[in-house]
């Protein structure tokens, strides 16, 4: 039996401990904000926070979540919108939007450790998150806008 916290709530899981966290969130808990994009940690669409750090939930086995605190987009902000989400709306980042939850989780993790990231730091932090619609220049602008808002 694996005990973990998801968005502050205690959860326990007794299924296949090899099952990636992504499918537990989506198929078992019904939290579909985190997306399946590649299944091998190459695209970032499934990004969640594990103990505050951005992780690819599609390659994070359930056995490695024992005792951990998981935060998904559903729990990133309990009151209204997170500053990163607000910036994403202000800059009008999404096109199809499918990757954007992962982008937002990655960006929020970046800004939690770097208050004012440079372009290069943004590019490095966001390099694992693919957007096929090509919203990258707005992602960069939104991260800067959020950084300003958060300081």
């Amino acid at each position, binding site marked *: 039996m694996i005990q973990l916290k998801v968005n502050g709530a205690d959860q326990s899981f007794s299924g296949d401990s090899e099952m990636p966290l992504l499918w537990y969130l*989506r198929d078992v808990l019904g939290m579909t904000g985190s997306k*399946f*994009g590649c299944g091998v940690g190459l695209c970032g669409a499934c990004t969640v926070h594990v103990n505050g750090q951005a992780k690819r939930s599609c390659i994070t086995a359930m056995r490695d979540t024992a005792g951990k605190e998981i935060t998904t987009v559903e729990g990133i902000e309990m009151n209204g919108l997170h500053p990163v989400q607000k910036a994403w709306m202000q800059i009008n980042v999404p*096109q*199809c939007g499918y990757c954007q939850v992962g982008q937002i989780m990655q960006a929020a993790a970046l800004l939690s450790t770097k208050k004012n990231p440079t372009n290069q730091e943004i590019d490095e932090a966001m390099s694992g998150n693919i957007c096929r619609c090509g919203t*990258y*220049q707005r992602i960069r602008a939104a991260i800067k806008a959020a950084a300003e808002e958060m300081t």
Partner: protein
Amino acid sequence: MSSIENVSRRKFLTGGVVVAGALVLGVRYYPKLLSGTTFLRNTNADHAKLNPSVYLGIDPDGTVWIVAGRSEMGTTSRTTLPLIVADELDADWNRVKIEQAVGDKRYGDQNTDGSHSIRSFYDAMREAGATARFMLIQAAAKQWGVPPAECETELHVVVHRSTNRRAGYGDLTRAAAKFPVPTREELKLKPKSAWRYVGKGHVSYDLEALVTGKAIYGMDARADGMVYASVEHPPVIGGKVKSFDDKEALKVAGVHQTVAIDPFQPPPAFQPLGGIAVIADNTWAAFQGRKKLNITWDNGPNETYNSDAYKNELRETSHKPAKVVRNIGDADAVFAKGGKVHEADYYVPLLAHASMEPMVALAEFKDGKATLWAPTQNPQAVQDIVSQQLGIAKEDVICHVTLLGGGFGRKSKPDYVAEAAVLSKKVGRPVKVVWTREDDIKFDYYNAVAAMYMKAALGSNGKPTAWLQRSAFPPITSTFDVNAVYGDPVHLQQGWTDIPYDLPNLRVENGPAKAHVRIGWLRSVANIYHAFAIQCFTDELAHAAGRDPLDYLLDLIGEPRTIDFKGVEYPNYGASLDAYPWETGRLRHVTEMVAEKSGWGKRKHSKGSGVGIAAHRSFLSYVATVVEVEVNDQGEVRIPRVDTVLDAGLVVNPEATRAQFEGAAVFGASVVRSGEITVTKGAIDQSNFQDYPVARIAEAPSQTNVYIVDSDTPPAGVGEPGVPPFVAAFCNAIFAATGKRVRDLPIAKLGLT
């Protein structure tokens, strides 16, 4: 309005006509007067108190329901088309609720591709809004005892100015519903000066849902009692299962059963590929069970296909005289005279779509009816293929359209939706089929691999005195017709037969090529390889002549004129040449404008840096692009800046349009940098983003500046036209920066170090 008129309209609408004429009638189709009519699914708009159109209803509380008949994959068509309705209605956008239509021919063409949602539905949306506004004014005027002509509308209210009376739209719905639906001739459309939303635009209706994870894509659809499926398809197209052993698969916890799906009967069209499906409690268990399948395949005739050998075949074909699809003067006679000639071979490989959401669909077959929830660009095609596959009537197929996690043309082809439907029928429960990224890359309908041979005879000033271009590519029509080997007019028009240069002698040819994989349309389609060849060859000729590429390009485009397509089969993207003539002056204008905006010839470029230019018309829009690149000593290519100018006629949503062109540059960057599907013994070599990379943040342009030409000409496409000129301009910039000519895509194999 008499019931006779309505019945005649109904007959017309149900006659399978999906051309513009039917759409216009559809807008004024008044279902409330038709007793006994049943729709596949009634919308809130249908149920609203005032419902003068299939696209629109207004309730007494003032809520305006607008039906989005086209799919949303990121281009904002689901927002922008309703904006047109709301504008003409003078509706408050905050009181508009958008409903997504199921697949139903009453909405007209729903195949959301070809960059024509705005173009084809602009008039229909305006008329829907104007019709409701007309009826609301009639109701208010009657209530007040004044002539309707004295009444006007402000935001969500009808006003009679001289008596200072006002009535909200909601309050008028009951009375308005008693008036007949006006004819087209009675409608007064708003003048441009009164437009609220058109030309100003709006962010996506779904924006907040998109950033909070609440948006529902196909991947997120759920149904009670649903099971999950993952399908092992034949690795070679047209192959089939010889034998299989599922003992180990069935031992995986959560796996229920395996189901064999029949192979398709050629041509593939939108039929399921066949194979073995693993049905399980959750997606992960289905994936795990599938890995334990032991299948022996009969690969069929395409097993002999290797993309390396095929490339050589295409090139040889492109070097032999072929079918002439456009001719001016006598290019051969000029070539025969000898003199200076420049030749080049261009090549673009197969390309995959790789939308971020892999193919996925949920199907429930119950009581002889199929209900689907799918991220599809084409819900009526879903109805067609599912009805064929299950042997039920098209009307018994309900296709709900979710949001799409990208489409780029792939999701116009509903093989994956049909797969879910077939499985639900076999399993007897709702089934959600989830494709892996590997499935998505390996079982795509690829953009055609293409070889282009270019030849020009050059006069004393370096200008061509004769021009020959010959292409060979497996046509999209091969997906629907096993015998198709030549390019069809719909795809040859895409930047090939419409080469816009002012040339005295021109011959455009196309040679045969047989397909061995499924070929399909991908964002901007044949324009990618055609524009690449023509615009890069133009750059080659400019350098050969020692001339500035911009000046040379303008020289070839020539003076403003309308291209005469006499003797050429030129479909003009389904639009008439009267409404959308091919005007070289507009191409010239965007080219001159992008030169100015980008500071062409004025900026200094250090070693390893340079700019390239290209201009192209596609989907009726004229676009010119300048790309700046920097190549370092390690051969790494950066794109610091892109400038692009578009003339797409009237642009309804400029903000969304800019986003489309920013995205097109990134899409084009992927094509140039790394886009390549290769094939060994009939099976696709690539599988996921490690071997089919797409542009990441640092590989995308750092800054794309988009400039929109102010125009009142009819609206044209914006989703696709940004890609072709970007691809060519990027390659021309690489030449400017490095002296290395890009003739084979992608550049990953060029060796820039």
